[in-house]
């Protein structure tokens, strides 16, 4: 395949398209022109990469191209957010490249245009298994982080409703159950992401943890988080207090105002069933878990100054049929009524252009080693076997 010629042809079509749309949106053309001029060097060598690494500047022109996440900031940006196979890919390829796709661009454009003095809008990314919902969410969160927002990321809500080793009865409320391990782990990761905010925001209320431990009013939030990490027993209550503080103080008119992005992956776990059992072998309902109860309060749209980005996830969900992927099916009646009204963002498999881009990226990274997979027929076979589903394609290419 003659890449330079292919690139020239694509470039010509892009120029023609731009001249057609030129009259409609001058600003878009200007930014796009700036983008094209700023990456002449890299775009000469790759059709599938873009040197525009700022998510705020991504437009439809970059759709299907890979942008690089800076490796130094990866630990602070996503300590726990990225999918496992993507983390393995980062380790193997020695770089973190994410494809710019339509659902993420749509979500980012909504975030740019929203009015943050109004109550928080809820966005739900839904689609079939392995289509790229979590990656689109991570792309949107990268955008939020570059814009200076505070990011509250729950990497997988399903982990809070199953496989819990220690389930303690709550110290503060009689009917509830605490999950100290999950809560303290999440607080540690929260601290790595949002360190710079924690010294600026102050508590508005006095919290009593035990007879000897309290957190006074007006103390920085960092102290609250340290309390939760150090004293694992009260960490679930600390999470609840933290969520309450952030809800009250997001988007204030004061100097230290910040916008809050609440991101929950697998939000259908909060309204499903759990596999946890109480001591008398009866099933635990999700609302009896402190973490889930407080998170549900966070997902209500009664606070302003931020956005709520969520993903539905079938992998990891409990007692749901394999074909379920729509919001009504996965959230159930109760969940849908609570999340309604929301902005649905559908995520589908790769288009032809995106598949080409993915294929070229794997070739560039020397990932497709089998000689037949590098031919045209091998590519057709890959399209047939994976049906352009991103995760299935990734697993197929791993073994070839």
């Amino acid at each position, binding site marked *: 395949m003659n890449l330079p010629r292919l690139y020239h042809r694509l470039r010509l079509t892009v120029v023609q398209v731009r001249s057609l749309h030129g009259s409609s949106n001058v600003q878009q053309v200007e930014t796009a022109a700036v983008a094209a001029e700023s990456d002449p060097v890299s775009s000469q060598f790759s059709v599938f990469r873009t040197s525009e690494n700022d998510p705020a500047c991504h437009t439809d022109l970059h759709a299907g191209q890979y942008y690089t996440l800076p490796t130094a900031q990866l630990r602070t940006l996503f300590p726990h957010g990225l999918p496992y196979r993507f983390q393995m890919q980062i380790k193997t390829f*020695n770089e973190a490249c994410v494809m710019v796709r339509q659902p993420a661009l749509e979500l980012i454009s909504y975030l740019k245009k929203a009015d943050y003095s109004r109550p928080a809008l809820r966005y739900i990314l839904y689609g079939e298994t392995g289509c790229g919902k979590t990656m689109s969410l991570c792309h949107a969160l990268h955008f939020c982080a570059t814009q200076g927002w505070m990011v509250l990321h729950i990497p997988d809500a399903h982990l809070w409703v199953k496989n819990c080793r220690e389930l303690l009865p709550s110290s503060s409320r009689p009917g509830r159950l605490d999950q100290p391990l999950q809560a303290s782990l999440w607080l540690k990761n929260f601290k790595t992401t949002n360190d710079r905010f924690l010294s600026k925001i102050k508590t508005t209320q006095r919290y009593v943890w035990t007879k000897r431990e309290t957190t006074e009013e007006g103390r920085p939030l960092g102290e609250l988080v340290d309390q939760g990490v150090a004293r694992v027993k009260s960490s679930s209550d600390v999470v609840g207090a933290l969520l309450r503080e952030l809800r009250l103080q997001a988007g204030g008119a004061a100097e230290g105002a910040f916008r809050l992005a609440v991101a929950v992956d697998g939000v259908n776990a909060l309204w499903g069933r759990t596999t946890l059992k109480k001591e008398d072998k009866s099933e635990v309902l999700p609302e009896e878990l402190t973490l889930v109860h407080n998170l549900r309060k966070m997902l209500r749209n009664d606070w302003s100054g931020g956005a709520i980005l969520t993903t539905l996830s079938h992998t990891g969900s409990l007692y749901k049929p394999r074909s379920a992927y729509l919001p009504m099916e996965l959230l159930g009646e109760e969940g849908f009524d609570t999340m309604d009204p929301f902005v649905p963002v559908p995520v589908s498999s790769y288009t032809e252009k995106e598949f080409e881009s993915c294929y070229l990226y794997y070739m560039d990274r020397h990932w497709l080693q089998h000689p037949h997979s590098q031919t045209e027929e*091998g590519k057709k076979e890959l399209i047939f076997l994976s049906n352009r589903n991103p995760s299935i394609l990734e697993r197929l290419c*791993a073994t070839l």
Partner: protein
Amino acid sequence: MAASISSLLKPWIPRLSLVRWTRYNPYYLEPEPNKDVYMIPESELTPEQKQLKEEKLTRPIKAALSSTTSSPFDDPVISKFINMIMQDGNKVLSTEIVTQTLEAIKRRQVEKYHKAPAAEREAIECNPYTIFHQALENCKPVIGLANIQKGSRTYQVPIPLTEKRRRFLAMKWIITECRDNKHRRTHMYEKLSQELLSAFANEGNVIKRKHELHKMAEANRAYAHFRWW
């Protein structure tokens, strides 16, 4: 042996028509899953291929196994390895183990490739299939030993091995080495990938076992004349 007799056999049609057996009459021909063979035009066929095509008009053909595909990604050596790893007929598990092994080998090599400076990159082999084949080749013994009884004593006599036996021994040694001599808590695919990569570099326990067999055969050279075939 059966193949040479098959040309002397009379045309044979079974009385009962069953779908597939494990042991076929030698009159049956092997199926050809490769698509390219059927695309060659009449003029370019070699005399052997023409004869085979003639035979296929009259002789019956064995049923193809469910694990064979017409795709060029299909590798008979890998299929044999999967069958040898299989326990209790759990082919799904053994295919998973082997595909995870190939992935683990590729990941390690590609990671090494990307971290190495440009000068060393060409020397790093990233294709897991070539690594597997080369490692297997390195593990195959050249000469084997057989127990031959002469009088009341049993002697270890060096004998030549067929290609099939060599391949079988190499695969068996790799699998037993990974099952028995590695740490209990590692996954089979990790153990296999480590062993295959060290065999590719001519190191490791399987290569050592092959060398020990060669040394024993060399030591027992004196009894070589006990062999009568």
